[in-house]
């Protein structure tokens, strides 16, 4: 019988050291896996366990899946030790993905923190591939220190795309850093977007999501204009094991990108 808990085999083709704490695994699944931007996979470190990750690559390239991983605990530690040729497992895709239809014709504000730029990259690639459909894409990104700016080699390439602008900041600079210093929320003050025609999509640590949300509401965004990439521990990925809920919503089924208006009154939204 069909088994929703079986991890499909995938081989690591390449390991890219992005930052001191983040590595990208380039995977080749045994069979190509079709996914929508923003849907996530449960990645298995064999014999150890699974953890949820949103691929950062384009959904239009199904045989090659890039997953960027921050070293944070047991499973991610094991994934960081892996080398090209090693086998991993994949289950998914799960979740609803980014609400691209909602974003059409809008000024899209994308706010990322740290490794949060990894899932957002799949959103950005989807937006860039179809840029005619969106009024504007404005990216605000922050990391703790310059060395932790994920995908920094791509920023200038993105800035060249028509209707795309990007501002970057770090919490603390270093001797070489010439750019802005300050939390990513500082990039949200006095936004030059047409807020009434804008949607915001944010991904990063829970504490960042909390203050980004407050700042956006302060700037005039309504709750229904804000999408948050929520973080929760996950297990089954299919809405059955009970773990990843925010109120009645299961992030694995209804998210992980949740419209803030739907979840704002439930307990522990920002954990």
């Amino acid at each position, binding site marked *: *019988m069909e088994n929703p808990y079986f*991890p499909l085999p995938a081989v690591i083709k390449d390991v890219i050291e992005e930052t001191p704490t983040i590595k990208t695994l380039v995977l080749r699944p045994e069979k190509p896996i079709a996914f929508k931007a923003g849907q996530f996979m449960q990645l298995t470190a064999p014999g150890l366990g699974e953890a949820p990750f949103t691929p950062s690559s384009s959904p239009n390239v199904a045989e090659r899946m890039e997953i960027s991983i921050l070293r944070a605990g047991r*499973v991610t530690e094991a994934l960081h030790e892996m080398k090209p040729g090693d086998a991993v497992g994949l289950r998914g895709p799960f979740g609803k993905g980014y609400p691209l239809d909602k974003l059409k014709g809008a000024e899209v504000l994308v706010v990322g923190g740290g490794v949060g730029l990894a899932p957002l990259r799949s959103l950005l690639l989807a937006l860039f591939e179809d840029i005619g459909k969106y009024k504007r894409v404005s990216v605000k990104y922050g990391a703790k220190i310059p060395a932790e700016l994920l995908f920094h080699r791509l920023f200038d390439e993105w800035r060249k795309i028509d209707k795309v602008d990007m501002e970057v900041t770090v919490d603390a600079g270093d001797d070489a850093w010439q750019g802005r210093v300050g939390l990513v929320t500082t990039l949200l003050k006095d936004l030059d977007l047409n807020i009434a025609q804008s949607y915001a999509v944010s991904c990063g*640590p*829970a504490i960042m999501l909390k203050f980004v949300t407050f700042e956006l509401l302060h700037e005039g965004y309504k709750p229904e204009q804000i999408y948050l990439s929520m973080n929760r*521990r996950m297990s089954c990925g299919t809405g059955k*094991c009970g*773990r990843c809920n925010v109120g009645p919503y299961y992030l694995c089924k209804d998210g992980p990108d949740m419209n803030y208006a739907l979840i704002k009154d439930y307990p*522990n939204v920002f954990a």
Partner: protein
Amino acid sequence: MTTCFISDSNLGSLLDALAEAGPVLTNRPAADSDYATYAPHEKGAAFEYTGIRPTESLKGLLFPEREKVAEYPATSPEAPEPPAPPAVVGAANCDLKALASLDAVFLSDDFRDGFYAHRRQELFVITQDCTNPRPTCACTYLGFKPYPEEGFDLNLSQVEGGYVVEAGSEKGRELIEGHSDLIRESTKEMLAERDSKRLATLKAVEEINKDYVINASRRELLAAGDVEPPWTAEVSKCVECAACLFACPTCHCFLLYDQKSGETNERIKAWDACSYAGYSRMAGGGTPRAFLLERFRHRYMHKFDYFVENYGFEMCSGCGRCIEACTGKIDMRKLFKALESSEAAPAPESG
């Protein structure tokens, strides 16, 4: 529905016949306490009617405490079908009502869980009317009756000399028709005896629960928020043993974990409990429900608010196992009553 009558001794013979096809669990008095429990039917044994639900629910037969759900790497992603569960005799109506919650979660079309679905399809259940409710019984509090009217293969209602038997499914009908020598027609007197016993039990459970009756819905009472006195008074008694969650026939949280096994890897699906601090703990921080009060409240929110939002009914059968099992003697009926009496309670709707 059509009924018939089976005598006490013929019921024993019917169970013997059922046991030829596979293991049969029967509800009988426990050897060392005044609880009822399931144990395997032995050939020639009489059925010892308890009139009350057993300690064990049907959950463990459909969704085992721990089972291996995958071995990898493997040549095929398919899994073998799990073995059929034993036939069950003597489950109560609350046990049937609880199945609706598990079915809603595990039988959903997307990512169908065959480990549950296959067992559920193969389950053969003979239920019984309750006649012997306990102070913890709360079926009427949830709007259910202490006797089954649907959802069973066969139901037994104890009457003089034996049982009125009702067939509720094709499989139940087939068993009866295949052993027509063991049954007789049921008489008007028998049905009247069954009905009067049912009414008496219904009234008894209502009497047990009369001090707990609330006017607002449980969902409304929970929406009133984190009202301090009722919640903090109850949570102070909670020791996070999770007995309520494991004993509960509708609770279904589980954890998938992997382990190495010789040259291969195994994925195990095991019961988990939302009351545990580590249940939703995340590497890198940001654990929701870090405080016990939040986890304590979440159980009620899930059962009486979120589940209602998602499936349209409460995730509770009123079986009372949680009240019976609780180390701290926490009783949800008392909690809801206290929430209603507290200052933040919503005004009851008129009409």
